[in-house]
């Protein structure tokens, strides 16, 4: 008997082999894991890299410096300084005159039109705005830095292939020569594109901005948060702490779990049918978008809230009850503060999902082309992901960069929201 035990203890050849193969398996397993993480990381880097690369050109914009004579004859033929007159004046002709002074050899009407098309339509509006703000400047000659058109901008950024046959190119040979001459005379500057962050959508790529979509997303999320957080927390608290265990609560629980898995477009259809058609709420408004997204986010918050409440040790509840706290006091004074980090994390993750949601908002008309910046949750507007969708469909090439830039902005918001979730959790956990 004792001999047998001793024999088993002596490491045999077979045992050694087994041990070696176990170590090999261990190493292999670790390599699989590292390979999986490496794959995920490289996919992420590839995605972010290509989007950032595409987006860089959208963050700058070329402007041309022009001396424009604010001819009183053109702007204010009656000399009354009437704002209506000033607004309606033919600023395009002022720009045309100014450009023709630089290129006196251009005479043909078609060539002149082509020359003026180097400037963005926005240049006229900038002149108009300047004159309306400074009516005293009429009659003087001033230097303006004006945006060039999207195609001219692409050419200046070197994104137009000069080898392509002229007919297939967006910028003609003549336009290319003019732009090169302007550039050589030091009139062209590449500037940071603040317009992209401060203006609303536009048909002209060089004028389109993301501010409208940012505001729309902001108002939508505010409405979503204000609705879904209190309702979600109240529902989670009641279900977890007060509701009697019964068939009915089981049924409710199953339904909440099912709702969390419902495709978001269904919520959009619901919003269309109920809020727009039945209740007659405004179309394309963040108010309705927020309500629809709140319905979508509610199950997420309830589920996160319930699991956060479940994680609070029952001894805390007992301790509170034992000193004579009522059940509500026990929950509000002790359980809820403990569960709050978890609830907030769930809420922020739900909000991040709502921020990236597109489909339900298409159903309630937030896909409209809206130029004006929304001033409140009742104004028609669009949201970031829908703006990305709209730009990705635009035929002008310059919108491709805009699309990527908008994606970067959306990602920046998502990352900061998730960072906020981590921060909130850390802060609350340290406090206890």
């Amino acid at each position: 008997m004792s001999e047998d035990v001793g024999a088993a203890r002596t490491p045999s050849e077979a045992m050694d082999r087994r041990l070696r193969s176990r170590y090999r398996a261990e190493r292999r397993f670790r390599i699989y894991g590292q390979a999986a993480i490496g794959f995920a990381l490289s996919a992420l880097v590839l995605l972010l890299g290509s989007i950032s690369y595409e987006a860089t050109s959208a963050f700058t914009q070329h402007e041309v410096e022009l001396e424009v004579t604010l001819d009183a004859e053109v702007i204010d033929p009656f000399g009354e300084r009437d704002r209506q007159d000033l607004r309606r004046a033919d600023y395009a002709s002022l720009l045309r005159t100014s450009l023709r002074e630089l290129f006196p050899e251009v005479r043909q009407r078609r060539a002149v039109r082509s020359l003026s098309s180097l400037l963005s339509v926005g240049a006229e509006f900038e002149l108009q705005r300047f004159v309306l703000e400074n009516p005293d400047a009429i009659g003087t000659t001033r230097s303006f830095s004006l945006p060039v058109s999207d195609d001219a901008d692409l050419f200046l950024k070197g994104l137009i292939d000069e080898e392509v046959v002229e007919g297939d190119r967006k910028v003609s040979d003549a336009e290319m020569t003019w732009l090169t001459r302007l550039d050589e005379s030091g009139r062209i500057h590449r500037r940071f594109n603040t317009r992209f962050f401060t203006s609303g959508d536009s048909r002209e790529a060089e004028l389109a901005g993301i501010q409208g979509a940012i505001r729309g997303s902001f108002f939508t999320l505010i409405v979503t948060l204000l609705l879904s957080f209190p309702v979600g927390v109240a529902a989670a608290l009641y279900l977890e702490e007060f509701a009697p265990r019964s068939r009915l609560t089981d049924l409710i629980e199953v339904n909440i779990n099912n709702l969390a898995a419902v495709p978001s477009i269904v919520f959009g259809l619901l919003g269309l049918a109920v809020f727009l058609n039945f209740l007659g709420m405004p179309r394309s408004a963040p108010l309705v978008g927020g309500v629809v997204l709140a319905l979508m986010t509610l199950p997420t918050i309830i589920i996160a809230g319930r699991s956060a409440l479940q994680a609070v040790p029952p001894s805390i509840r007992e301790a509170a009850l034992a000193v004579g706290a009522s059940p509500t006091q026990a929950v509000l004074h002790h359980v809820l503060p403990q569960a709050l980090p978890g609830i907030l994390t769930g809420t922020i993750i739900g909000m991040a999902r709502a921020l990236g949601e597109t489909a339900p908002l298409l159903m309630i008309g937030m896909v409209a082309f809206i130029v004006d910046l929304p001033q409140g949750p009742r104004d028609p507007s669009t949201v970031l992901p829908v703006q990305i969708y709209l730009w990705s469909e635009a035929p002008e090439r310059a919108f491709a960069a805009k699309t990527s830039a908008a994606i970067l902005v959306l990602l920046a918001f998502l990352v900061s929201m998730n960072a906020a979730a981590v921060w909130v959790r850390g802060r609350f956990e340290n406090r206890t």
Partner: protein
Amino acid sequence: MIDPTRESLPNEVDGVEVKMQTSGLDVFYGEKQALERVDLEIGANEVTALIGPSGCGKSTYLRCLNRMNDVVPGCRVEGRVTLDGEDIYDSKLDVVKLRARVGMVFQKPNPFPKSIYENVAYGPRIHGSVQDKSALDDLVRRSLRKAGLLEEVEARLDEPGTSLSGGQQQRLCIARAIAVSPEVILMDEPCSALDPIATARVEELIDELREQFTIVIVTHSMQQAARVSQKTAFFHLGSLVEHGETEKIFTNPSEQRTQDYITGRFG
């Protein structure tokens, strides 16, 4: 459920005033009966130890005394439990008031994740038993002193209660319980999570507290029951086998099962 003999229930047993009493107490968890017809008197300003093997119903019994079983789903209590002759399961009785009169200390120290001060001040605050801040300060310090903890934590009342050691936490829980000035304190194996030194401190404390409070303690340790209690009740399989003077139970029990349990033959 109404006991016809309740008017004639003794309010004194062996010369000691009866503080709490149960008669014909049955407790069910769903279909399972956890306690069967338990009749027991708990004397005022005494320590009553409840002993018995695991699952014998002693904790269940303890939790009937301040209706903590109310929060257990599926739990049903039948019979009569009185505090100073009043039925505590009467529908007219406010359970919040009852728990202010019958405090509880749990097996595992469970301070609130708040400051030491807040832990003790919470009970008085929700009951509104103090008028102002200075009275509350005073009460917190008095309670901590009674629990024998004041000297150790005086300088750090703002620190979280969870930062204390296990034994200190348990004394903090005792301070929290006595801050609402209860008449009875229930202790559910208060020393099972503590080391021997901390246990000795808590046992000393129990002995001191006896002067002001009636104490019911559930314990797994026979030695502890012998050291701290005046009365002992032995539970087995959901029924009360024997109860009486601690000395008598430990030296000369009348039931064979008690004899077997305290000599370690089962349990």
